[in-house]
């Protein structure tokens, strides 16, 4: 290849025409043998060391001032020619490559990992499915709730110490409102019980999966945002036996048929009597280990018979729409409710010791659930 800068001896029109014709010829002949379009472009049109640039600098410097205009016009034309050649060269090279580098159909295909449900969603869906099979339907509610639905209707009176156990996150700028209308982040899925009962008369069988918020510092077992699944069953002749049978079945469905359940007294303002449910430790089968704090039992959920006070709050709200409403008369109907933490159940199911793994987005953790 010719790297030398050609000399231009005369600046009259015929000499210029001849010199540029020589250059154009040089471009075409190089293009025919060129295999690499980018190298070709750099050689001729490169901004600093391109041949066009070097030649135009040399010729413009040595030539008279009045030759600049005809030179400039010709260089522009030459540039256009080079660009046209470059386009055709690229096309030609591409065709050659396609001819030579065919797809090897014997190679294994590229594998893209399929998306999977998050382990929490998976557990939540499993729990919900157990109750769907028992005839429950899903109900949902807002995460920003009013004090009425989250507390007051659930028999947490203002200033009651039971509110302290909920570590509530309240929304700013609510002080001017009446206490029951103040907005907060729901601390449990139980407000959906109230919403559902106000919206429809018994019988009710709902299961409520959802996100809840508490002002808890994050540690191995706490997170300010977590998930619950709530259940509510209201009908005539619902008894504590129904509650025990339902939850015993649900725990066996989730953790295996050898799991034992036991109920013992607890307290929730919206149920009376209330109970906590423990399952026999699935790690040590009840012998006592670190996971169950040596007790042999793992506490998984809370439940109880719906407190008549809750039915009274529901009736009060329903009578604003229909003054004669008596659908939730505690003398005629009873119900049970239960609630469980999805994280807790998922941690027990998979033997996870730190709740933080669920929210870290660490692929090494999440891929284990594929």
């Amino acid at each position: 290849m010719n790297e030398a800068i050609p000399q231009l001896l005369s600046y009259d029109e015929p000499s210029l025409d001849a010199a540029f014709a020589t250059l154009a010829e040089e471009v075409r002949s190089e293009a025919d043998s060129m295999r690499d379009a980018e190298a070709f472009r750099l050689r001729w049109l490169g901004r600093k060391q391109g041949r066009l640039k070097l030649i135009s600098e040399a010729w413009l410097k040595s030539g008279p001032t009045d030759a600049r205009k005809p030179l400039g016009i010709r260089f522009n034309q030459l540039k256009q020619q080079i660009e046209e050649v470059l386009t055709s060269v690229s096309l030609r090279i591409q065709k050659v490559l396609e001819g030579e580098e065919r797809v090897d159909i014997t190679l294994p295909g590229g594998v893209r990992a399929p998306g999977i449900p998050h382990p929490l969603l998976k557990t939540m869906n499993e729990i919900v499915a157990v109750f769907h099979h028992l005839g429950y339907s899903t109900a949902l509610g807002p995460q920003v709730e009013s004090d009425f639905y989250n507390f007051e209707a659930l028999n947490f009176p203002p200033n009651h110490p039971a509110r302290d156990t909920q570590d509530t996150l309240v929304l700013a700028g609510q002080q001017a409102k009446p206490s029951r209308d103040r907005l907060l982040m729901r601390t449990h899925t139980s407000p959906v019980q109230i919403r559902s009962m106000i919206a429809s008369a018994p019988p009710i069988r709902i299961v409520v999966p959802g996100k809840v918020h508490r002002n808890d510092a994050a540690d191995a077992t706490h997170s300010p945002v977590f998930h619950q699944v709530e259940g509510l069953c209201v009908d005539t002749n619902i008894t504590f036996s129904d509650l025990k049978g339902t939850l015993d079945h649900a725990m066996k469905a989730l953790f295996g048929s050898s799991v034992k359940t036991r109920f013992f007294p607890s307290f929730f303002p919206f149920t009376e009597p209330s109970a906590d449910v423990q399952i026999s430790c699935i790690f040590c089968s009840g012998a006592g280990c670190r996971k169950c704090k040596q007790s042999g039992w793992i506490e998984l959920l809370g439940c109880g018979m719906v407190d008549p006070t809750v039915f009274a709050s529901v009736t009060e709200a329903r009578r604003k729409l229909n003054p004669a409403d008596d659908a939730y008369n505690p003398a005629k109907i009873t119900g049970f409710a239960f609630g469980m933490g999805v994280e807790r159940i998922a941690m027990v199911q998979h033997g996870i010791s730190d709740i933080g793994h669920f929210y870290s987005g660490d692929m090494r953790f999440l891929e284990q659930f594929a």
Partner: protein
Amino acid sequence: MNILTKWLRSFVPDIPVDDRQLAEDLTLRGIAVEGIHDLGPGNGHLFEMDITTNRVDAMNHYGVAREAATIYNLPLVPLDTALPAASPASQPFSVQIAPEAQNLCGRFTAQVLRNITIAPSTGQVAEFFALLGLKPISNAVDATNFVLQGMGHPNHAYDLDKLDGGIIVRLARKGERVKLLDGSERTLEPDDLVVADHSRAQGLAGVMGGWDSMITAETKNILVEAA
């Protein structure tokens, strides 16, 4: 809260089961024992309790002992509430409950103790505090916390010489400020009940005592309140 089985058993000496079974039996009656920690030979166990807000009566050692006595149908050792004979004060210390606070403070009892010596706690108080992992402060302060842990009754010791005049239990004035024992300075609302002297609030009633009248190493005379 935490319960020492050693302390608990001093109220019900004849509990016929070991600590592990005791925890199990309490839990099944709704006084949930969440964790059991061995404190070494002769010290029994520490129960980590999770007591629900409907069972405030059981949020202390005597309350849990009462439950245990019921479970095993055993007598509960009565509390020794006898006080040493006191001499009538030369100038009576005045305690009043303001009219607006009558419904919020049903009873206010107090005892003046003079010429006392502030020193570290000894004996059972020191032993139980160490087992419970509570920080001992001084004999006077530890005694009030000992009563709280044992019987569940909030009570407080004031440095008598730092109180102005006498005690008035009243509602706070809007914007009134009080510095509490934890060093925090609080602005009060008119629905907060305070224990005040004749010039300012000296504590949030039933919640926390005030900084200004706290017991120090130099304290000579104290007022013990149980309300």
